[in-house]
């Protein structure tokens, strides 16, 4: 006996259910394949980016320790990064100390520990707040300016012009900027710490009359060398991170003018994020050692 197979109607055509299922399966496998390919491409881009970053850092170190250093440009960058950041860092330092004092004073008064205020502010500023807040401010100012400057140089073929005129742009533009940031940012952080304590004294004087030398004597009596050392060491890493991220993003910017903005923006975001990650690692290491 011959069994009659049921037909179903798809797109005005009568087809067997098994053929329809086959078509559906093919369509689904195509969608899955496309999604898999897209994910593979994303993973590929991610690993390519990581490889490029590693190559960039390796090239930076190679160029740092080979001959023909651009010492004059390095000094120029120290001036640009260090000296030209002083007004911003001064304001940040003073406000940081003042606000911390104004916020902490009522709490300490509740416990009758107002005399601990200078020491507490000094320790918090030097160990954590000074490096992190100054580092973030520097990431905003310096990493973005490096990203934008190198990005626009890339767009307007200035980097290629440098290469053609027998100048190593990696040495002239990147090495000088990264080392200048690595050396200047710790100095800016120490400067911000000092102004922070000064701001704290000013904050304490808003609602009282505190002697300047007594306040400073109390503040420094609570600080040991061991408070300063990890903060200084990590600030060198902050400087290196800011310099490397700013230069990497600018040096590898795309061709259009839009890419200058993207380079500057992503330099700030990534440098700030990495700075906080470095801080967490530094705190953990300091904790383990101490």
């Amino acid at each position, binding site marked *: 006996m011959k069994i009659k197979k049921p037909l179903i109607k798809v797109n005005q055509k009568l087809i067997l259910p098994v053929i329809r299922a086959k078509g559906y399966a093919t369509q689904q496998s195509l969608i899955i394949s496309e999604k898999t390919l897209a994910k593979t491409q994303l993973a590929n881009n991610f690993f390519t980016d990581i490889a490029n970053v590693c190559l960039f850092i390796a090239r930076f170190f190679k160029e740092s320790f080979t001959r023909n250093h651009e010492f004059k440009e390095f000094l120029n960058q120290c001036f640009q990064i260090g000296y030209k950041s002083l007004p911003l860092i001064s304001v940040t330092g003073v406000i940081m100390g003042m606000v911390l004092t104004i916020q902490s004073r009522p709490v300490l008064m509740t416990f009758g520990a107002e005399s601990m205020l200078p020491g507490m502010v000094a320790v918090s500023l030097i160990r954590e707040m000074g490096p992190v807040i100054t580092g973030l401010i520097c990431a905003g100012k310096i990493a973005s300016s490096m990203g934008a400057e190198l990005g626009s140089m890339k767009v307007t073929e200035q980097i290629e012009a*440098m290469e053609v005129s027998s100048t190593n742009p990696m040495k002239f533009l990147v090495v000088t900027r990264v080392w200048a940031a690595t050396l200047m940012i710790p100095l800016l952080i120490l400067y911000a710490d000092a102004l922070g304590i000064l701001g704290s004294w000013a904050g304490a004087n808003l609602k009282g009359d505190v002697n300047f030398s007594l306040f400073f004597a109390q503040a420094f009596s609570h600080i040991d060398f061991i408070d300063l050392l990890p903060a200084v060491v990590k600030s060198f890493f902050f400087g290196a991170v800011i310099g490397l991220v700013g230069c990497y993003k600018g040096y590898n910017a795309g061709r259009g003018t839009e890419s200058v903005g993207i380079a500057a923006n992503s330099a700030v975001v990534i440098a700030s994020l990495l700075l906080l990650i470095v801080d967490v690692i530094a705190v953990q290491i300091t904790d383990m050692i101490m």
Partner: protein
Amino acid sequence: MGASQTIINNASVKTRSGEPIIEIKNLQISFGNQHVLKDVSLQLFNGENLVVLGKSGSGKSVLIKCIVSLLNSDSGTINVLGENLNELNTSSLGELRKKIGFLFQSGALYDSMTVKQNLEFALLRIKRELTQKERDEKILEVLENVGLSDALNKMPSQLSGGMRKRISLARTIIVDPLIMLYDEPTTGLDPVTSDEISALINKVQKKYKTSSIIITHDIECVRATADRILMLQDGEIYMDGSLEEYENSKDPLIKSFFK
């Protein structure tokens, strides 16, 4: 006429004497799936102005960027002044680049430096033996040659497009190159300034005895400067000949350029 029917006019090539100072053989370069140059071969002879003509996107700029190794080719050989670029290490390439001047499309002046610093930048790296006095004299000399001796202390942002091109040309010739590569020297300039730049290219060739490759799609610049013209179309050489041969060509593509 298709790309396979390339017009190579041997008569114009035969007039050149001696060894070519740039010789490119079977150059191929692609970016992803896009084949920008497909099997390009050319020669530049001593004292010659070779104009590379073609539509936008035909691979003209890519071609001269390969000559200074700003871009690496996929295959083919490039010999510049007897040196094979594929066999050069970084320092040898640096030495070779000192003999080549490259005028970028945008001028590529360093924005953060004055005109004097822009000119001094190249001198300090390529002509290290010069004293400060000799450097200053050389700077003034090239600025006079491009007719901008009063722009010494100006910033690039204070210069017009034509002035930027002239200063950029001064920066290139200050180191006495043997070969000049011009990437669209008259693009974005008014006709009067374009003519001035074309005249300056000829002046540089005569005064500094350079050989040049000029990338352009500006026909007036071609007419003013070309000893020989090479036309690129879709990454391939479409025609190689003299200005007269191009002017008399019946080919529709060439006629569309030489209206």
